[in-house]
């Protein structure tokens, strides 16, 4: 009589755990029987004998208490996860920052033993959000994606904020989540809590694509496809659920041989040629065209193209700074208010066109909603080139409020710029050239005036304690200006001083912000970017590291020290969650109340003081050189100079500085 529970111990029947997924039954238990014996048995039409379980009597208790997945089989032949490593190696992925987990133990073992822990190299992380953040920062310097491995459900839940930041920041990251899908065979206890039928659902709303391979060949195709989708603008994270059983299955020695699909990069989408011509006409004949950019320059060539476009039109450029799009030293660099005089505005990869041309005031008007007002003239023509128009999701609407655009191109800005530039050249009337040159002269004067005003504003509170953010920024710059530097994060808002005062001319000198404004991005992203800078050949990485951001997952400091990633982190320690501090204060005042600050400086629940966190000691405990707290501005320069020398020797260094709020 057949057992009602064929997989149960002693049932005498063993069906491959993938059968229900792949629809293919294979003879013999995966890994429990040598392939040769299993094949022979199958050929004879016999049911393979079931071997005794290796589970000790206390398995359930052990698993429940430790989460350890117990070996149920010793797999002969080439493990499936070795093939997975073969696939991964074809894609030139340099690192796997990850927090280790049982659900991906098989591929972990293959990566370090079969793959030699090279291409990719495993980087030990202490939080999945840190791992994804590192990948985000790394890509923005290297231009190449990293992959990360996460534990199904719990690890992926830790990773979600990092994934959301990468999504909003248009950064490709390949996430693989270990998942023990087969409920009938997975070890009891914790592995069940750590598995789900569809782990990808957790991040589906903010990933470009996901898949759940059910065979090794399916994995090969899915991984290459995932890489290709992630790396086609608009970039974005992708997710693969990696079944624990699939990782451990042997590569079949019969049937079609496994192959690895060849990766060929997809050409990025470009704006429609007719729309490009229409935009060129508008821009060439404009009296005062203005260019607004957000994530326009994907590469250093994007910066060169934008300079070419701006100079051709002598048009002011407003850089919203989610990448280094346009040199801060260029006389056409302008402030957000420049849109008010424009008759034509072209927005390149803007995440929020509405807020570019409208103002919002959080003043409680309109029944508490706040006041909206246009910032542009009513007849201003709006042009947009954005690849994000090609990728929208319903749930997380990071494209923000709706803005009517006169010429909208769904395409990648950097890819479209060469044809737009050529079209403008042919559209500029000869009698417009003198007027265009005159625009440039006016812009030069305005830029010089702006720089002088900005420097004078920076001089205010120069010698005060806590240290002004202008002083903080310029002390850092003074110590690194002769190096090939890269500002890899500036979290906590230092009034944008580096972008206003530092001469940023190269693409790597500023990599933008988190994307989703999820606090906790700065520390891991700066470590990831510093890793890429290190590998490029000793480029100096510096971050302005805020207090609240660091405390989300400070373990990434250890990862930096462990893997010898040189990074100078200068703390913007204003001892509070300052954005929220101001929000609560504003609400108290709107409601005609004195905000309750308790014994702190800010409203209760928003300060990080009493006790003050000694970040320098935290960093020291994890292998960093560190100094602080620096409260006297006269001591700041020498401390940073000392730290710079440490970083130049290959170590990470942190200077804890007490700062003004913004």
């Amino acid at each position, binding site marked *: 009589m057949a057992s009602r529970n064929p997989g149960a111990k002693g049932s005498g029947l063993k069906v491959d755990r993938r059968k229900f997924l792949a629809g293919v039954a294979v003879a013999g238990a995966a890994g429990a029987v040598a392939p040769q014996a299993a094949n022979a048995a199958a050929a004879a039409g016999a049911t393979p004998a079931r071997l005794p379980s290796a589970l000790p009597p206390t398995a359930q208790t052990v698993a429940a208490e430790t989460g350890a997945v117990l070996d149920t089989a010793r797999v002969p032949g080439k493990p499936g996860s070795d093939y997975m490593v073969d696939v991964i190696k074809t894609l030139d992925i340099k690192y796997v920052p990850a927090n280790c987990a049982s659900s991906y133990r098989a591929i972990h073992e293959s990566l370090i033993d079969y793959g030699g822990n090279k291409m990719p190299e495993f980087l030990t992380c202490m939080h999945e959000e840190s791992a994804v953040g590192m990948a985000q920062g790394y890509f923005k310097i290297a231009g190449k994606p990293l992959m990360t491995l996460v534990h199904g459900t719990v690890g992926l839940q830790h990773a979600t904020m990092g994934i959301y930041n990468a999504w909003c920041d248009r950064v490709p990251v390949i996430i693989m989540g270990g998942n023990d899908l087969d409920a009938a065979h997975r070890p009891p206890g914790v592995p069940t809590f750590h598995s789900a039928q569809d782990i990808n659902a957790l991040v589906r709303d903010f990933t470009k694509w996901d898949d759940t391979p059910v065979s090794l060949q399916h994995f090969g195709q899915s991984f290459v496809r995932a890489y290709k989708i992630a790396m086609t603008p608009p970039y974005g994270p992708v997710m693969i659920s990696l079944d624990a059983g699939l990782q451990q299955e042997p590569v079949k020695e019969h049937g079609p041989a496994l192959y690895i699909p060849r990766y060929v990069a997809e050409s990025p989408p470009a704006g429609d040629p007719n729309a490009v011509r229409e935009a060129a006409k508008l821009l060439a004949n404009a009296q005062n065209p203005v260019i607004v950019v957000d994530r326009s320059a994907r590469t250093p060539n994007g910066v060169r193209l934008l300079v070419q476009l701006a100079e051709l039109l002598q048009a002011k450029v407003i850089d919203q700074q989610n990448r280094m799009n346009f040199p801060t030293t260029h006389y056409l660099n302008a402030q957000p208010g420049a849109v008010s005089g424009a008759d034509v505005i072209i927005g390149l990869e803007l995440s929020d066109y509405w807020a570019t041309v409208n103002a919002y005031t959080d003043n*409680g008007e309109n029944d508490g909603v706040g*006041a909206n007002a246009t910032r542009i003239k009513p007849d201003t023509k709006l042009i947009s080139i954005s690849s994000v128009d090609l990728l929208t999701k319903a749930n997380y609407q990071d494209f923000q409020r709706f803005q009517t655009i006169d010429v909208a191109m769904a395409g990648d800005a950097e890819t479209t710029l060469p044809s737009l530039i050529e079209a403008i050249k042919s559209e500029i009337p000869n009698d417009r050239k003198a007027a265009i040159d005159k625009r440039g002269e006016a812009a030069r004067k305005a830029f010089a005036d702006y720089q002088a005003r900005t420097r*004078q504003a920076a001089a205010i*509170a120069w010698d*005060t304690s806590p240290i002004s953010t202008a*002083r903080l920024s310029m002390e850092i710059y003074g110590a690194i200006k002769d190096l090939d530097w890269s500002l890899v994060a500036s979290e906590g808002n230092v009034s*944008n001083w580096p972008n206003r005062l530092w001469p940023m001319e190269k693409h790597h000198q500023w990599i933008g912000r988190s994307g989703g404004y999820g606090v906790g991005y700065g520390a891991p992203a700066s470590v990831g970017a510093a890793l890429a800078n290190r590998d490029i050949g000793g480029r100096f990485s510096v971050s302005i590291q805020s207090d609240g951001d660091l405390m989300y997952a400070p373990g990434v400091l250890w990862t930096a020290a462990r893997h010898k990633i040189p990074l100078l982190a200068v703390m913007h320690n204003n001892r509070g969650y300052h954005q929220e501090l101001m929000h609560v204060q504003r609400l108290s005042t709107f409601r005609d109340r004195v905000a309750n600050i308790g014994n702190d*400086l800010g409203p209760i629940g928003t300060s990080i003081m009493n006790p003050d966190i000694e970040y320098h000691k935290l960093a020291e405990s994890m292998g960093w050189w560190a100094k602080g707290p620096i409260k006297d501005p006269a001591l700041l320069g020498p401390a940073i100079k000392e730290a710079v020398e440490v970083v130049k020797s290959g170590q990470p260094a942190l200077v804890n500085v007490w700062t003004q*709020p913004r």
Partner: protein
Amino acid sequence: MRRSMFRVALAAFAVSAVLGQGSAFAASAEKGKAAFTKFGCWQCHGFQGQGSVATSNGKILAPDPLPWDTFSAFVRTSNTNMPPFTAKVVSDEDLADIYAYLQSIPKPADYKSIPLLNP
């Protein structure tokens, strides 16, 4: 609209109260510094009123604060991102002290004399 009118009326009262009474308040920069912290002014404007492009739209309070009547009217009736601070929250005396504190903040050096601002 009704709220705005109320604010204007309130401000007019506050300004007249302070200016009309002349020396009714012996404004104290020292007390003003404490009040500047207590009432959260520092949060957006910095401890020295230096302002920020991120929080005060670049508005610099000190040195050289706005004339008293403009300053106090703005504090009482602001319709910008800064909420209006009524006398219930910041008394006229506290406001005068805050103003005295802002007046006491010394002028910064010319940026041309600061090497780090001339790299």
